[in-house]
């Protein structure tokens, strides 16, 4: 099937305004008759639930944490982009649009990206009105910083906790609606199934994580804003509970999964310190402004870094990319670090790390200047590693960070299943094959505050409110299925824990479907994943009962889904026989190691249809056309 993103035709500059006029409305008196289920309370879901509640819809919002404020958006550090052009340095909606398309290596839909750039300015205003304490200058004006992939300063920030402050803003708007009675919150509640009635999304089946109760909530539309899936790698910068479960189970009920192979590996994270490691911590990319990356020239050189003389060091980024040096783009920097370690020249425990050395900068600028620039990062680093980076180089290693892929949606953020809308990191819409820094926060809030309130009305206006009741056979069936799965987990009583399986899956994915992928590695993954999955269903051990708080059981469901999803991700990576953005196929590279796209054959979004576990999924293509930017080789030289 050729998919249609249903973008407005005509000049892109006015496309969103014209589209908004064409969308149907729901009259104010009727809004409260419609119930909308919003799964996820991060930037995307929190903003959506608050805005829809304020409009008068009857909203139920769900999250697995004990508070809406704890969604993983809370962990974002750096900042949020907007095309305000406050610094007068040449920014514009067009430039933000252009940078995002180019940053995504020409694999995103133009109209969606244009809209994102257009509403970016409203986001900043909205957050200021909520009391988000953005950084300001002494005159009281909003301050900006620069981020990768852009030559203008368009990033707004709140110290190193931008995500936290934006989320607390959305959370406060949500709290206001809870008080007003328009939003009902269900915390510690996990969505485990999508209920589809006559082809349309009309409910979700959830498990109450405190009592273990499994029940269905019915509504007139379902909004998924459940975040990203990079925990498929086991170790990542995501929170422990982040999973593919909500989107995967919607996929199994008919929603297409788009570009699952597009994942972002962030170059500067604190390396794993041992087998016990449970997650990885990101360190801001800005460190590469003053830090020099190097590895010992000799394999297995165990000397402390400060005792390795200059001539025995390889400043590999400076050597390989003389024009960009240590500021080579994210994907290149990540792959280069991996290469050093693969060759046996990595540093630190397990040899999975490279040095990020500040000694020269400290000599040149003084320790105080470095402290003023990065003090909080050095402190964070010391907390985890117990090392003083003013004295010895930091050790860094790339880590899975963000998923550009997600459920396929059209311009209205509606999936191919009518009534199912997908927002934020959970959808595939705007970042193409690579996301630029400070653009995920922007997307989440754009979708939640300024897109879904308009587009959902267009669907609801065509439906009769309350058409599906809780006693619908589809609801009953869904509950039975989930109960059966729960019982299955508890009855296997095998020998390996859920975490052991997750770790093993993570290893397969990291080694074969990570920073560098080849036909061989992907085929290897496709051989190993089903074997591991089969073993999981025979040999996993989950203790306790279903009718109680049972964290092993929660985790078992998430890992079971990753074991299925991993196969689709590998298939997508194998099918995409080109390199683009974060998807790097070693067979396709430029002489300088840059990703080599193949626009002739792969200038499309790949949307996969589920055909049963272990069965060949069906590929649907949405061709991408570029009318407002010139399809060109991405270069940052």
């Amino acid at each position, binding site marked *: 099937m050729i998919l249609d993103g249903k973008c407005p035709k005509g000049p892109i500059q006015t496309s969103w305004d014209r589209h908004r006029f064409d969308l149907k409305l729901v009259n104010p008196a009727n809004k409260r008759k419609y119930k909308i289920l919003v799964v996820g309370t991060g930037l995307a879901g929190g903003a959506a639930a608050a805005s829809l509640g304020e409009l008068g819809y009857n909203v139920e919002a769900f999250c697995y944490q004990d508070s809406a404020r704890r969604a993983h958006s809370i962990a974002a550090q750096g900042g949020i982009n907007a095309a305000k052009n406050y610094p007068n340095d040449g920014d514009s909606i067009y430039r933000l649009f252009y940078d995002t398309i180019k940053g995504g290596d020409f694999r995103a839909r133009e109209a969606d990206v244009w809209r994102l750039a257009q509403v970016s300015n409203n986001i900043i205003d909205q957050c200021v009105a909520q009391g988000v*304490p953005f950084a300001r200058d*002494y005159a009281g004006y909003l301050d900006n910083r620069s981020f990768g992939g852009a030559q203008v300063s368009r990033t707004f920030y709140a110290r190193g906790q931008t995500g936290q402050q934006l989320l607390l803003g959305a959370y*406060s708007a949500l709290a206001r609606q809870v008080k007003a009675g328009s939003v009902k919150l269900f915390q510690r509640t996990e969505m485990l199934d999508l209920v589809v009635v006559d082809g349309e999304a009309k409910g979700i089946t959830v498990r109450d994580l405190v009592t273990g109760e499994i029940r269905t909530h019915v509504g007139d539309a379902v909004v998924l804003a459940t975040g990203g899936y990079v925990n498929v790698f086991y170790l990542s910068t995501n*929170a422990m509970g982040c999973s593919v479960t909500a989107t995967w189970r919607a996929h199994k009920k008919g929603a297409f999964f788009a570009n699952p192979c597009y994942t972002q590996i962030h170059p500067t994270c604190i390396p794993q310190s041992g087998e016990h490691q449970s997650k990885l911590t990101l360190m801001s990319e800005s460190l590469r402004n003053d830090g020099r990356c190097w590895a010992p020239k000799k394999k297995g050189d165990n000397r402390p870094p400060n005792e390795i003389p200059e001539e025995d060091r390889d400043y590999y980024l400076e050597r390989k990319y003389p024009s960009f040096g240590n500021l080579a783009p994210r994907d290149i920097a990540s792959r280069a670090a991996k290469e050093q370690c693969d060759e046996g020249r990595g540093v630190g425990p397990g040899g999975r790390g490279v040095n990020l050395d500040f000694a020269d900068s400290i000599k040149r600028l003084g320790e105080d200047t470095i402290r003023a620039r990065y003090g909080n990062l050095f402190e964070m680093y010391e907390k985890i590693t117990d090392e003083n980076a003013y004295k010895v180089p930091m050790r860094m290693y790339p880590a899975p960070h963000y998923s550009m892929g997600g459920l396929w949606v059209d311009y209205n953020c509606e999936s191919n299943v009518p009534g199912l809308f997908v927002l934020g990191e959970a959808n595939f819409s705007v970042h193409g094959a690579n996301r630029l820094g400070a653009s995920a926060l922007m997307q989440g809030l754009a979708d939640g505050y300024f897109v879904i309130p308009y587009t959902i009305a267009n669907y609801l206006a065509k439906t009769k409110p309350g058409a599906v009741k809780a006693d619908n056979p589809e609801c009953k069936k869904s509950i039975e299925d989930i109960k059966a799965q729960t019982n299955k987990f508890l009855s296997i009583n095998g020998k390996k824990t859920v975490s052991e399986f997750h770790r093993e899956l993570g290893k397969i994915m990291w080694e074969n479907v990570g920073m560098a992928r080849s036909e061989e590695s992907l085929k290897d993954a496709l051989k190993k994943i089903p074997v591991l999955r089969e073993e999981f269903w025979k040999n996993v051990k989950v203790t306790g009962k279903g009718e109680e708080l049972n964290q092993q059981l929660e985790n078992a469901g998430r890992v079971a889904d990753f074991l299925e999803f991993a196969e689709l991700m590998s298939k997508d990576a194998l099918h995409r026989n080109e390199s683009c953005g974060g998807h790097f196929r070693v067979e396709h590279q430029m002489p300088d190691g840059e990703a080599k796209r193949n626009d002739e054959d792969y200038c499309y979004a790949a949307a996969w249809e589920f055909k049963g576990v272990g069965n060949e999924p069906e590929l649907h293509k949405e061709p991408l056309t570029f009318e407002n930017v010139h399809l060109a080789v991405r270069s940052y030289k």
Partner: protein
Amino acid sequence: MSAHTSNTMTITLHVWRQAGPNAPGKLEQYEAKNVSPDQSFLEMLDEVNEDLIKAGKDPIAFDHDCREGICGMCSSVINGVPHGGQVRTTACQLHMRTFKDGDAIYIEPWRAKAFPIIKDLIVDRNALERIMQAGGYTSCHTGGVPDGNAILIPKPEADYAMDAAECIGCGACVAACPNGSAMLYTSAKVAQLSVLPQGKAEAAERVCAMVDAMQENGFGNCSNHYECQAACPKGISVKFIAKLNREYQKALFK
């Protein structure tokens, strides 16, 4: 430099186990073996749990998510101190190198009247949510707000608001307070919003509503022990409590 040491430790744990809200609870003893100094405190608990599961026993339930000190989910009293007593450190940021081989560690849930125990180390913190819902917001609508630079905010005020806004809502302040008061938590939000021009219009109603909610939800009064500030993993200052008191007085005499 203690990193990369291969010396592992054996630690005796005394962990609060309680099957449910109404079940009796007691401290159980476990041995954590081969603990690496580079391991985080929660990773040490993970391994104890792996052993428990393999032995067919119920693993220790504890809250956690981000494991980098920002989500506010982790919550245990470690050797009598919420989050373990390292300066500006959450339980998930605590590393085993701060302990020695042979140490005993007591691990208990937040204890406060307003936080009923759900299971083991997990408590119900919904009372904190209800304080926010009472007034922890500005009543702006989505859309229809002025340009972000239309109202200037002097840097000192923006910084003051940010200092208060760093609260992660974990509830350690409540657990540390002999009265089980949520004063630090509540005051941080009141201070943030009352210093910003966007929040001033509703300052009086807000402080009254939030203080009322605090009292209605089972939190005790503040009698200036300041244990909250000492326990706060984000270093939120008790100066915000003074600010709340001033705002409250102003509101009463309005």
